[in-house]
């Protein structure tokens, strides 16, 4: 038993939390935050599983993947925010149009 398993489980928790918020909230900024939390959960699982075996140095391949993942996530966030602002300018709403209001 290694403490990295703890972090892997926390990653699963973060992924689930983010997925819940992604489904439940209609405000697009909240959806963007939720996707980012989901991504962090996935990164946590990847790195934690790479350092699972005690006594050996952690696997560098997941680390490299996660570094590229973090930079891609931030650029995707910027694109999503720009899309949200454009949608807001077009429709006056920051929600997706086909969803019923109420949640």
């Amino acid at each position, binding site marked *: 038993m290694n*403490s*990295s398993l*703890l*972090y892997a*489980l*926390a990653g699963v*928790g*973060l992924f689930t*939390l*983010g997925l*819940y*918020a992604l489904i*439940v*909230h*209609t*405000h697009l*900024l*909240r959806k963007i*935050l*939720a996707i*980012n*939390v989901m991504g*962090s959960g996935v*990164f*946590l699982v990847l*790195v*934690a599983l790479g*350092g699972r075996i005690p006594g050996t*140095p*952690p696997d560098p391949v997941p*680390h*490299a993947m*996660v*570094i590229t993942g*973090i*930079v891609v996530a*931030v650029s995707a*966030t*910027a694109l999503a*925010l720009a899309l*949200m*602002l454009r949608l*807001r*300018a077009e429709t006056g709403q*920051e929600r997706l149009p086909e969803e019923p*209001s*109420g*949640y």
Partner: protein
Amino acid sequence: MVLQWLFDGVLVLTLLWLAWRALRSPDLFTAIVLFIAFGLVMALAWVRLQAPDVALAEAAIGAGLTGALLLAALARLNVLADSTNDDQTAGTENE
């Protein structure tokens, strides 16, 4: 190494709690601030997982870029917003 286990436990619980509060706080600004704090704590988690490269990337992105991006987007949303601030009412309906 009870101390390290305690450290890990507190760190993981803080992460989960921050994410939870960030995703369901009624005020959007609070949500963003909590998300920034979440990024900072994530960097500590990477350090504990012996991934200093990832911690560096997360520190640079989390402290420097994500916060600025989100705050600027929120400011532009608020500039566009009319006086009825419906994101707050939508948040409180969930309670």
